[in-house]
């Protein structure tokens, strides 16, 4: 099954197990969501648990916070990550701080699901990758799905989390990747990265849809240059699996971080700083970030903007030749 189906299956299974779960967002009720992730849920579990909200992102998140405070488990959808910004105040000032500002008297374990990323000719407003903004906010966990298996595991963990989670779903590969997804419940623990390809010459780090570009680049440089690349899929950015990452870089002495989001202030910058702190004496080259440009992601020149496998390859070679 693909990512959509994996998410839908997970929701279906979890809804049946726990009647505290509710889900809502724009067009999420009868219509099943513009990407069909909540399809069938309203029919099966009722409008009270799966419904359409007015067109108001700050309302979606604010409302979800109240539901969660009172003991429901809301999984709200922001139709595109590009539209999360009206909810930014609710996320940063209320959701992220609820437990600490109330001295642990009130908590708001909300799951916010949102499709992110480019590659579908969405232009400025259907392609953004705003994860870095939330990583700079203590109190929220951030997970990045990259495959159907990951989707189920991460969504399940998010649902069971007692902390608020933003789950970013890579829209460009929503349907493109199909794989076997176990029927039974399983969780991918937050803070556990995956070393998808073991290697010894250079560490390549990514998440979401970028992970697949990274894997492709790794295979190609193995063929063309006999380079052995270790590819890491972080899966969750907060909490971050720093151990796996540093262990890898200490072994390879070189690192490339790839992400779609613009370069400046992107999460690659944070990873770069962490690697410098923890692996400094082992480094043979600076950590190279292969990312989108510091421009809004364009419609027509999208390919030129995105850090595709080709660009990642160049970055790998450059780092090894440093």
């Amino acid at each position, binding site marked *: 099954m693909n990512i959509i189906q994996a998410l839908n299956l997970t929701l279906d299974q979890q809804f049946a197990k726990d009647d505290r779960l509710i889900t809502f967002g724009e067009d999420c009720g009868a219509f099943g969501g513009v990407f069909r992730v909540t399809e069938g849920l309203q029919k099966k579990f009722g409008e009270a648990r799966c419904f359409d909200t007015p067109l108001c992102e700050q309302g979606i998140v604010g409302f979800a916070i109240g539901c969660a405070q009172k003991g429901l488990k809301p999984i709200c959808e922001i139709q595109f990550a590009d539209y999360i910004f009206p909810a930014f105040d609710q996320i940063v000032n209320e959701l992220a701080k609820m437990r600490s500002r109330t001295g642990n008297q009130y908590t708001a374990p909300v799951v916010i699901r949102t499709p992110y990323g480019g590659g579908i000719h969405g232009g400025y407003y259907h392609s953004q990758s705003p994860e870095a903004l939330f990583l700079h906010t203590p109190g929220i966990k951030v997970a990045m799905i990259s495959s159907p298996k990951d989707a189920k595991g991460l969504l399940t963990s998010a649902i069971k989390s007692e902390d608020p989670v933003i789950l970013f779903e890579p829209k460009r590969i929503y349907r493109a990747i199909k794989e076997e997804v176990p029927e039974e419940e399983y969780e991918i623990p937050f803070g556990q990265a995956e070393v998808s390809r073991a290697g010894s010459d250079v560490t390549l780090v990514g998440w979401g849809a970028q992970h697949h570009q990274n894997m492709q680049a790794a295979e190609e440089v193995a063929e063309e240059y006999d380079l052995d690349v270790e590819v890491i899929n972080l899966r969750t950015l907060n909490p971050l699996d720093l151990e796996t990452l540093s262990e890898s870089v200490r072994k390879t*002495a070189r690192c490339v971080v790839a992400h779609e989001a613009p370069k400046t202030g992107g999460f690659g910058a944070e990873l770069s700083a962490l690697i410098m702190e923890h692996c*400094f*004496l*082992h*480094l*043979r*080259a600076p950590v190279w970030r292969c990312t989108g440009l510091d421009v809004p992601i364009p419609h027509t020149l999208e390919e030129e903007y995105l850090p595709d496998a080709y660009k990642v390859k160049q970055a790998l070679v450059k780092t090894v030749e440093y």
Partner: protein
Amino acid sequence: MSEVVTVTLPDIGEGVVEGEVVEWLKSEGDPLTQDEPVVVVMTDKATVELPAPHPGILKKQYHKPGETALKDHPLYDIEVKERLEQKKQKKSQAPAPKKKIAKKTTGGILATPATRQLAKELGVNIEKISGTGKEGRITDQDVILFHAKPSKPSVLKTPTLHMKDDKEVPIVGVPHMMAEKMVESKTVVPHFSFFDQLDATRLIQLRDNVKPKAEKEGYTLTYMPFFIKALSCALKKNPNANSSVEPDASQLNIHQHHNIGVASSTKTGLVVFVIRDVQEKSLAQVIKEYNQMVLKMKEGKLTREDMIHSTITISNFGPLGGRWATPIINYPEVAILGVAKIRKEPIVKNDQVTICPRLNISWSFDHRVIDGSAAAKVSNDFIAMLENPAQIL
């Protein structure tokens, strides 16, 4: 038991650091009850009445109306009747532990963190290593080779002779280093010698012509600057003689810079100072620089920069006498030129015996780089320059 408490201007809020005293609601000597308003202060944000934190008598007002009071500075004194309860201890930051910070000056040295760590582990001072990597970077190999280096020649089987009444003089510092360098040079480089002699007539004439001018500018004019410049001209036609060989003889690095070292004898031993880039300097410049260096050397003020990176060396044993010598190459160079004193000698010219000032030159070459014909060529070119010295001006 009464006590005087100084009330400071409190933090009224949100970054306010000062306030103007507008009005004293109580005068000096007035009794104050707990929380009674004492003074009106105006800040950027608000005009506020400040209440007394303790009951007592207002003893002293520190500011008149219109004056500005500063936050945490005295505003007024209260004489209180009872001992006040201890204020909550303020957090005190621990003073930073005084550690001696060993300042390291390894800036300007190009090496990756991994290479630096390797050097540290091997106990090698990375500053001593010259890098062979990209842009002069020190590579791991440089570190390892440097570490492996003091390759003591394994030929030392014969023990040194010690006799009963020997005078034991320690060899330390520069002489010791020079001794080791010479052993190294002779061990690594297959030396071969080449001797020749040139007619110094025109050289002497040229020097005599140039001398007054030079002396007017304060320079002592010896023949050395002429030898230096002439050698550089010869090197232009014989670039291989201005090079270095890789230790495994896999590569010859031909240097574009003619950094000509001049070996001189000093109190502390043999010293080589370097005149750099002679290929682009005029004779006049060489004369000037040579003099400066000699002066520095005599005053003992030569710096490391003055003495490193020579690409070929000249040794003048002239003043002390002698005709021929076999100088030891200043490794890692590939050639060294020894010059003797100019002497008048009888020579045969046009089947006639005449007297002519002659200069003996003694070359040593690295035979891996310079063979017999190459040696002859460079020597002939050098001689040609000095026998027609107008070319070297």
